[in-house]
């Protein structure tokens, strides 16, 4: 559509028509959905201010302000019609055990990827270990002393003079 222009040679009726056309193209400012409806400049500036907000809090506020639920967010992120597919910017981090399912749009931890360096020191507490799951192979050689045995029972082997030759520890009942 051509830009409406008023010429010096235009008749008054044409002037009226073109002015109304321009008015129609601008629209009714009362119908602005911006907060500031004073004029178009104010409204545009208000929008510009919102566009400049790009940190996570702003995004959240933006989403909240626009009443987007999670599915709508995912749909938004997955929209391939956008200039840049947001998913395409998500990357897996295999080195640190983070995978990315592009079809689902979600990160995940693949099986058998958490290595020793990923676990904080002293982070594996007793409750994280299943009952009856510590196998013999998991015990280091020469690692169990008598104090770890339940209801310690001790047997001494003595010579006939009563000198202890050997001490044998075992768990009691």
């Amino acid at each position, binding site marked *: 559509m051509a830009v409406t222009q008023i010429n010096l040679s235009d008749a008054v009726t044409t002037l009226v028509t073109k002015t109304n056309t321009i008015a129609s193209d601008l629209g009714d400012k009362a119908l602005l959905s911006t907060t500031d409806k004073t004029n178009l400049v104010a409204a545009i500036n208000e929008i510009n201010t919102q566009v400049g907000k790009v940190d996570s809090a702003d995004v959240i506020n933006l989403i909240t302000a626009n009443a987007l639920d999670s599915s709508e967010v995912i749909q938004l992120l997955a929209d391939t019609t956008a200039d840049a597919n947001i998913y395409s910017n998500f990357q897996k981090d295999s080195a640190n055990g983070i995978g990315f399912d592009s079809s689902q749009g979600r990160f995940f931890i693949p099986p058998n990827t958490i290595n020793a360096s990923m676990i904080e020191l002293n982070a594996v507490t007793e409750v994280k270990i299943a009952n009856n799951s510590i196998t013999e192979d998991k015990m280091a050689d020469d690692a169990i002393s008598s104090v770890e045995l339940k209801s310690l029972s001790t047997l001494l082997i*003595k*010579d*006939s003079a009563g000198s202890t030759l050997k001490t044998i520890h075992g768990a009691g009942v």
Partner: protein
Amino acid sequence: MAARRPLYYDSGNLREMSEAMITSIQNRCVYVYGSDPSVTLSVVGSSGTLDSMSDTRMQAGTDTTDSTNFDTESETPNISQVTPIVFDKISQVNASLSAPTDTNNRLYPVYYDGSGAVQAMTATDMFDTFITQAITTLVDGNDRDGTFRIHTATSLTDHTLISSTPVFTDTRADVAAYTDAGIPETRDQPTTITNYYVFRTNQGTAPSITVPFQVTTGNDLQTYSASAFDAMLLAEMRHHTVNTVGSRITYSINGTGANRGTGMVDTRLDGSGNYQQRQDGPSGSPSTVYRTQEFPNGSPQTINTYFLKITRS
């Protein structure tokens, strides 16, 4: 007294022996002793270490001669006892032994002390648990392995003759040897009634036992080998039977203790004399000799009975 209950291997467990098991080992002590007894008897020519025994018998009286008539019985010398024949042929020989050495105090079986310890028995424990009972068995008077006894023949089942020389012979006057026609008879005409010989009881059948644990040089518990256990028992038996006061096996003749075998009986005829006459020549002839003599007679009576005795002292 400290009799113990040794431990043995029972299907992966340590277990205290039962009374029956301990008794079996005591019997095993007797058995092993029979293989090499430390107290033996030998038969010697004379001066044996055991008391001597005497054999007595009667002999005929001195004969009489007369040219006119027979001497009366009262005029004829009586029968008399020969000088006793002394038998002093049995000697006891004790092996010279020292107490077994309990190297590192782990020679003997182990027992549970009731307070959380498995401990090797001491020599005293060993004696109180096994040896003293075994010695009591050895001296109970029955035929026990390695002990000695008297018998009246030169062979005896399950026994070994020590010597074919009898250690005692009972003799009596041979009544049949004296005849009136033989006057003057040789005064002493004995006959052998019984010979007595020394035998050793052979080692019998090995009692089955449960072999206990001992402490090894590595301080572990291990069941003795059968041969090692027997050797240990034998050494203990041999030592105590010759060295330990109150447990030394001692043989004697009519001393204290139990009889070992047949009693050696000295018998003698109990008659007062059998007066006999013999006329040597026709009656009335000046050359005729009238002879009398008294011969042994009567029934045999036991004069003395000698027993080989065994005891612990």
